[in-house]
């Protein structure tokens, strides 16, 4: 059993918790969003604030793996034939100048199986860690993530990744409605616009946290370390 994490409320709500019933959810740390020649950068997004969270996510990954937590990665990526791409989403990407599915430096933009859809190398998934390709912002829309988590008996979710105001918040909202007990790591999530990150965390702290708790990486890692270890 692990101690509660010191956050906007002590997490998880029920008291001590176990690694076996908990998963780290790593959101959209793919080249399309983080690489200089990726889709996000090519459409005018600033990747610098996103890159800042790579080291804290790497530290978190290492710690949760040794503590025995399940790890799930998500990517925003469509089928190569774009059968799962809504027409308004395609239209908006055209307005941004880089239509989803068009071939760019990393292959087709936001498409499964391309270099752009790969998780950046410092955070590479292990073979036992599922990568969920999602066609939208929320990992719970049109995917099997809920099935996978429930099959393993997961009840607690810890969120890291990008962007705080995009896929992270959308996925967390859906997880919370489904009864998962959620924790967002404030310094392992980021937005391309830093004020949007701060505003999102402010929203999530309303009424003591109605979507889950919020804590720093340090506070989270502290409870994962064995007693007496530094």
């Amino acid at each position, binding site marked *: 059993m692990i101690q509660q994490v010191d956050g906007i*409320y002590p997490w*998880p*709500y*029920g008291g001590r918790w176990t690694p076996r019933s908990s998963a780290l959810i790593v959101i959209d740390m793919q080249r399309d969003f983080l690489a200089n020649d990726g889709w996000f950068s090519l*459409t005018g*997004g600033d990747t610098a604030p996103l890159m800042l969270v790579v080291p804290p996510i790497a530290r978190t990954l290492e710690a949760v793996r040794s503590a025995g937590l399940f790890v799930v990665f998500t990517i925003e990526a469509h089928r190569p034939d774009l059968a799962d791409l*809504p*027409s*308004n*989403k395609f*239209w*908006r*990407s055209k*307005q*941004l100048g880089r239509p989803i599915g068009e071939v760019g430096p990393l292959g087709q933009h936001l498409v499964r199986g391309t270099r752009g859809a790969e998780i950046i190398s410092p955070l590479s998934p292990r073979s036992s860690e599922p990568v969920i390709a999602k*066609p*939208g*912002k*929320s990992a719970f*829309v*049109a995917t099997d993530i809920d099935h996978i988590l429930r099959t393993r008996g997961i009840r607690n979710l810890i969120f890291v990744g990008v962007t705080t*105001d*995009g896929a992270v918040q*959308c996925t967390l*909202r*859906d997880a*919370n*409605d*489904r*009864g998962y*007990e959620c924790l967002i790591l404030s310094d392992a999530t980021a937005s391309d*616009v830093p004020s*949007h990150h701060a*505003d*999102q965390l*402010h*929203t999530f702290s*309303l*009424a*003591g*946290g*109605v979507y*889950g708790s919020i804590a720093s990486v340090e506070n989270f890692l502290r409870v994962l370390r064995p007693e007496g270890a530094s």
Partner: protein
Amino acid sequence: MTLPPVEANPYPWPFDHNWSQSDTALLVIDMQIDFLKPNGFCDQMGLDVSLTSAAVEPTRTVLARMRGLGFTIIHTREGHRRDLADLNDNKRWRAARMGAEIGRPGPCGLVLTRGERGWDMVPELCPLDGETIVDKPGKGGFYATDLELLMQRKGIRNLVFAGVTSDCCVHTTMTNANDKGYECLLLADCSAALDRRNHAMIEAITAKRGGQFGAVAHSSALLAALG
């Protein structure tokens, strides 16, 4: 026959300039006493319901106009079954911690419970007979409800959003709708949050990056397009 596009941020809505009574619905989210009135759920938690109640009048105007033109009107309502079989333990714990435990007696009846006074719609926006009401146990209107089935049956592609709160149930439902391919418009003055900063954030991130979740307009722009 299509209607003229609505002047909106960041693009004239809808994206394909194709909308009419037959494929567009007004979604009125959670305009309940619990979120809008003194002694309701939010008021009991110490939140400022004067902010949310400001959305009622503009919504009333839009609702009357869209009703008159024959649009599909769908109301959502957050509340739990009386046996609380649909209440997540952590949701119950969090509300109790803020002094408003769901399912317990409060000034407006059992807190956030179906059939109670606090759970009811505010009288100004009472659904008419024949309008659809979707009861939901969570923030998102699609979760554990038949909302999507109802919209598919009616051939709805475009959604206009009003209601409360903009950063909670409105945004969760709208981002889900957007992920599912619906073309969404948020009416900025017909929705509100319990904190001004939160509402401003939702407007900003909705219109961000070419409208990542859809578009945002003032209700006057929608009314203008309706003629």
